[in-house]
């Protein structure tokens, strides 16, 4: 009926309604690990009952699927965790989330909140079941709003004493090193100093700005407004026959800065390379001085080679 009398029929060959039911199965009920082109025996069975409108025992199937996936995970055969939304709903309804919130472990960052992708008319178009999708302002939007609590939800854990629960969570926090919500720094990802990498680009990112940057590099390299290079900065020797284009000089500068011990470098200005170099030649060794000479000579040659 569904597979047109051939059990080896591929998913793309069945009709639109059944393909959509198959999609519900693989994306809303029993998520698979690999491709969905060849349905498994279990999938075929449930698809049959869905399509003939015979009610299936959804909780039993979900429990069975979760148990199977856990056993596969324990054997090290499966990295996918199915039913992420269902498990999250269970944690919410079982008041586990409430307990975590009381113990400062329920920020979006700690929990890593996400949502599933909605199946709608656009999906039909992507599956080539319809030619054109007609969007509507009433179309469902992805929601991160917590659902209302259900009365008489069975308990998830036996312990009800808030102090014991707090002690269990505190033990976990201590062992795992997880950060409590109010201990998260205001700007966690921003490093105080840039110690390595290429020079900062101009904010506007335009072509004109790029040209201006090259000119300013030349100006800065020729000027004596340089300071703070570490005396022990190592230097790469240039091989025979290597031309000294602007790119080479920039690459060498980048290499040189990458080899500098970051602990000894302090970036003092806008992040340009010149900010790292000292103007006091008496503090520099011979190799560093020769590098500065190369840098100051090179741009004149490079200007000719780069139109």
């Amino acid at each position, binding site marked *: 009926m569904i597979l047109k009398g051939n059990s080896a029929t591929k998913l793309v060959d069945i009709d639109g309604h059944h393909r959509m039911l198959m999609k519900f199965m693989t994306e809303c009920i029993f998520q698979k690990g690999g491709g969905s082109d060849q349905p498994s025996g279990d999938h075929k069975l449930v698809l049959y009952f869905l399509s003939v409108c015979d009610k299936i*025992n*959804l909780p039993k199937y979900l429990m069975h699927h979760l148990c199977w996936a856990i056993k596969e*995970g324990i054997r090290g055969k499966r990295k996918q965790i199915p*039913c992420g939304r269902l498990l999250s709903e269970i944690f919410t309804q079982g008041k586990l989330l409430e307990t975590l919130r009381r113990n400062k472990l329920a920020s979006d960052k700690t929990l890593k909140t996400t949502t*599933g992708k909605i199946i709608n008319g656009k999906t039909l*178009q992507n599956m080539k079941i319809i030619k054109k999708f007609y969007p509507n302002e009433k179309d469902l939007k992805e929601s991160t709003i917590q659902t209302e609590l*259900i009365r008489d939800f069975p308990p998830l854990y036996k312990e009800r004493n808030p102090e014991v629960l707090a002690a269990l969570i505190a*033990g976990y926090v201590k062992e795992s090193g997880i950060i409590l919500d109010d201990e998260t720094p205001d700007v966690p990802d921003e490093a105080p100093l840039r110690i390595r990498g290429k020079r900062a680009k101009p904010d506007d990112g335009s072509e004109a700005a790029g040209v201006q940057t090259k000119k300013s590099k030349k100006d800065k390299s020729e000027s004596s407004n340089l300071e703070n290079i570490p005396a022990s900065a190592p230097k790469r020797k240039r091989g025979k026959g290597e031309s000294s284009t602007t790119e080479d000089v920039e690459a060498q500068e980048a290499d040189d800065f990458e080899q500098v011990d970051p602990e000894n470098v302090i970036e003092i200005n806008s992040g340009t390379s010149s900010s790292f170099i000292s103007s006091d030649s008496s503090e520099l060794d011979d190799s560093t001085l020769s590098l500065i000479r190369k840098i100051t000579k090179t741009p004149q040659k490079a200007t000719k080679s780069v139109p």
Partner: protein
Amino acid sequence: MIKPKTMAIPFELFEVQVESPVDFESLKRNRMNLDELMAAQQMVPYFNMLNGPTYVNLVKDFWVRAEVYDLDAAKVEELQAVSKDPSLRGMSRKEMILEPFRQTEIRSAVMGIPITIIEEVIAKACRVAPTTGFFGMSAEIIHCLTASNL
């Protein structure tokens, strides 16, 4: 004491699969009416529930410590009790001072709190009746359906 991990795969390598919510109205506006079918399955509240937040880290923390307590696990529990004390051989679970096996459970811990999930919990979370509808996974049923040109 925190429940130990049951899975050898590192926490970061696990991938949480999030169920997709379904916009049946949008499907209907685009010539795919599945209302009758979903009403027969009484699964509309389940699909409505799917449109909500998924807590990836909680799910992973739950998963790395999860184990299935089913009939097989209960038998292993009895064998372990007998291996520790051979005089228990042939006795009932009650006589072994083991809790009676009632149903399959998923046991784990989330952020240090031990939790247990049973079928009734899943049914409540799905907003469907727990004991009605067809369930079958046996090879015989699949064989019959395949033979009758599914």
